[in-house]
Structure formats: structure tokens, C-alpha cells
């Protein structure tokens, strides 16, 4: 059961039950739609950018606990950050969930992101965790089309 506890940490369960920054943000300056055709997970990301700063951000849609909590935690983390800072976080997140199991993630550097280290044990769930991040990337880089993790 320990790997399961590692995957479904309290933080993740909490964000799943009480997602932060949930609901459409209208009007917004940036928007992207993320879709995982294999499992049907679907999240929209709304952002209000002030110059290079993400002034406000929200998400809306449906998905499993991993994808939903990942979106919730992500929006809390990038709110108020610059585009460049958000991009660094996206990279850190991607590196974290694809890092080999025998490597220890740098928890000091990662902060709250580190709760997703447990996803590595569950290869089928990596795409769940990544969906919101891919979608955020598309939103802030303004690629105006639906993003898929497949």
C-alpha cells in the first residue's frame, strides 16, 4: 500500500476534493483546451496575463484525482509568476514525473511540486499528471488549438 500512499498523498486528495482556482475565468487573455483522448480527461486553462506576468489563472473540466489535483496545484503555483518562471516550473514538473525511480528529486528546489514524485511508480498515470501542464504551456505560449498528451 505504500506506493499507493505515495501516489495519493493527502495534498493530492485534498486538491482533488477541494480544487483551487476552479471555474471559467472570463474575460481572459489566454486560453487553452487540454484533452486526453484515451481516458477522456478534459481541462480548460484560463489565464489573465499582464505583460509577462500571470495575474490570474483558473481551470475547469473533469478528470481523475491525479489530473485534477495537478491542475489545482499548478494554478496555485504559477499565479503571480512570470511567463519565464512558469515555463521553468513546467520543465521541472516534466523532469520530475519522468525521472528514473532510483533518482531522488530535489525537494527543496521543487517545493510543492514534489508531491507528484510518486506518479513515477505508475507509468499509466504520468499523462494524467502532465495534462494540465501541457495545457498551461499551450495557453501561455498561445498556441490556439486543443492540446493532447497522446
Amino acid at each position, binding site marked *: *500500500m505504500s*506506493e*499507493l500512499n505515495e*501516489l*495519493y498523498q493527502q495534498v493530492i*486528495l485534498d486538491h*482533488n*476534493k477541494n480544487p483551487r482556482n476552479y471555474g471559467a475565468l472570463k474575460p481572459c487573455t489566454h486560453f487553452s483546451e487540454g484533452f486526453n483522448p*484515451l*481516458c*477522456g*480527461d*478534459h481541462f480548460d486553462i484560463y489565464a489573465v496575463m499582464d505583460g509577462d506576468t500571470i495575474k490570474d489563472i483558473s481551470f475547469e473540466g*473533469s*478528470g*481523475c*484525482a*491525479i489530473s*485534477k489535483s495537478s491542475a489545482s496545484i499548478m494554478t496555485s503555483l504559477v499565479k503571480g509568476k512570470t511567463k519565464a518562471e512558469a515555463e521553468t516550473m513546467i520543465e521541472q514538473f516534466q523532469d520530475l514525473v519522468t525521472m528514473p525511480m532510483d533518482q531522488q528529486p530535489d525537494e527543496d528546489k521543487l517545493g510543492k511540486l514534489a508531491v507528484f514524485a510518486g506518479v513515477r511508480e*505508475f507509468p*499509466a*498515470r504520468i499523462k*494524467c499528471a502532465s495534462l494540465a501542464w501541457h495545457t498551461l504551456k499551450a495557453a501561455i505560449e498561445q498556441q490556439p488549438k486543443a492540446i493532447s498528451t497522446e
Partner: protein
Amino acid sequence: MNALKESMQAFDINSIRKDFPILNETVHGKTLVYLDNAATTQKPEQVIEAMNAYYRHTNSNIHRGVHLLSEKATQQYEEARKKVARFIGAPKTQEIIFTRGTTDAINLLAASFGKKHIQAGDEILISAMEHHSNIVPWQMMCEERKAVLKVVPIDDDGSLNMEAFEQLLSEKTKLVAIVHVSNSLGTINPVKDIIQKAHAKNIPVLLDGAQAVQHLPVNVQELDCDFYAFSGHKLFGPTGVGVLYGKESWLKDLPPYQGGGDMILNVTFEKTTYNELPYKFEAGTPAIAEVIGLGAAIDYISGIGMKQIETRESELLAYAMKRIAAIPRVTIIGTAAHKSSVVSFVVDGVHPHDMGTILDREGIAIRTGHHCTQPVMKRFGIPATSRVSLAFYNTEEELDTCVKAIEKAIQLFV
């Protein structure tokens, strides 16, 4: 009553389970509980051994060589065709075409039937509970030939709306393609009625039997269907092999699907003469070992008896429906009166994907997602379901284990 008692005595679950070596596997330290039989079934020793023996002792190409091994391989391959014909009650062996699976069989029919019989404005009638493999091939064909795909709706309990079906059958309808048993809802469709109504208007019917042949006795003559498709791997046989049955009267006039070796009588650069049935539709070296494996699977389940399997599985299904429906927060999707072997459900507060992961760690294999039936999910307004799907080797104890794990998942998330 006595006959029933005798038949149940013949169904020895312990010895049956011993035939399936994988049922002894441990998964994450737990004994495997395999409840994903609608995705693929496990293989008995007899099937594994038949394929093993073929590669060890007979491997050779068929329909060509004059040498002994080729003759033996050909004989075993054609023997399997006879077994399939007997199994589904096909009157003629040449009405059995080996394909790569149900998907391949439907693609074959859509391409070939479309080329011969479909004009602009014609209609193909399918249902809202089709697997993508009985939607997309028709969509592709319709697009190519400017035909129209019509869809029979389903009711809230997951049964086909027969009133709508009758209304949708028109002079323009050229083919009805309907699933025999739904893979995501478990509904057994009233196929005999469907066929009679279609035939009354001279419309042929294809049944997608991918989820039917392993659960119910199927006789294509009694049904009077014009085409019937199914897969080997869902029938306790190997992947990579399936069957398209077609009435000879239809098949003989249909053009070939693929060109190549084995499907020809004579080839020159000017003109090729196609082979007779069924070889006209079997281009290239087929999946010989898999066909032989499928034959062994049919021998195996015929030994148990499809009637017995149907009886045993309806007990198991009733038990599964009762136990799972009784779990708080659970809603079962697909509650038609006539159902087979599938319990699809959603849990308020637990996403199917998370359910699947929790169950997996308990050694329980189920399927979560849209089950290649996205229109069904849309119809019920849900993104996905968790699906428990049964085979005759499953037990009530396994279902108890599964119910306990579902309850555990609910505790974690809610």
C-alpha cells in the same frame, strides 16, 4: 431440474481454473483477480499448447508446399475453419473468412460491400451502443461513397430503442450493422427481431459478435444474420485472428478486400482471376498458428458447452450486479433486462481511473475509460466508467474481493 443439476455438476470450477495458468499469477503481491474479460480473455493450457506444438512440429506455409509439413499445416488450418463453422452453425465452411479480428472483419465488409452496393444517398444503420470498430469503418465508407450513417438511439437502461429502429429502416437503408452484445453496457440486443424486421425490407444485417460468442450459444442459421464478426482473443484464443461469417449468396459477389497471394487463381500483368471463397478474402499468409489456436479454443469451450457457460455466467452476473449496486455512491450504467457479463459503473466522488489504479494494487484487473464507445459515454453524460467484465472461470469470491477493494477506494477519496 435434473438436467440442470447434471449440467452444473459438469461445470467443475476448480478444474476449469486449473486450465488457465495465468490465474495463478500474483500481481503486486496479490493473487490475480482478472475481471477484464471484455477486453481480452485468458487462454487455457490447451490453446497455448496447440500453438506451441504447431511451431515445434508443424510450422510451414499453407496452401502451397507439396512437402509433408505444409500439407499438415494446411490440414490443421482448414480443420480450424470447420470448427468455427460448426461452432456458429454456419451451413458451409467456405462462408468462414479468417481475419485479424472483429475490427478487420468489419473493415473488410465495409470496404467490399460499399464498393459493390453503396451509392450516394444510401444509408447504413448502426446503433448508439456500437464499439468504435462498428462505427468508424462505416463512417469512412460513407464518406467515400457519399452515403449516410444513421444511428438507432438507446434508452436510459441501455437497451436499444426498437421503435426508433423500425422508423429508421427505410428504402434507403442498404445494411444494418448492430452489436450483438454491448461491450460497455452488457446489453444483449434483440437481434432475431432486428434481423426479421430488416429482412422484411430486404436489408441485410451484420452482427458484431465480439462480446457474444464467448457468452451465449450463437447459431447464424437460426439468427438468419447475413454477416457475423468476432475475435479469437475474446474467445479464449490468441490475438491476431478473427472471423467474418457471411452467407455465400452475399460473399460470392463481393469484390476482394486486399490483393496478394492466396486470394488469386491466376495472375498476369493484364488480368488476375480471383480465387473462390473463402480464399478470395484471405490475401497473404494468414495467422496460421493463431487460427489453429482459435480452433483449440473452440474445442475447449465446446467441451464445457456454451449452454453451461451461459447458465453459469448469468448466475455470476446476477451476483456481481447485486453486490456492486449495493455499494453506496455507486451507479450502474447499463441495466437492460437482457444483459451479459458486463457491469459498468460510476462512483460519485471517485474517478474511474483512480478506481482502476486502486484495484490494480489489490491484484484486480478491470477496465476503466470509455471502452472504445465514446458515444455511449456521451449518451449517459459521463466521461468514463469502471467496468467489471466476467468469464466463466470467475468466481463469487473474486467478486467479493473486488467489492471490498471498490469500498476501500471510496473510503480513500470520499
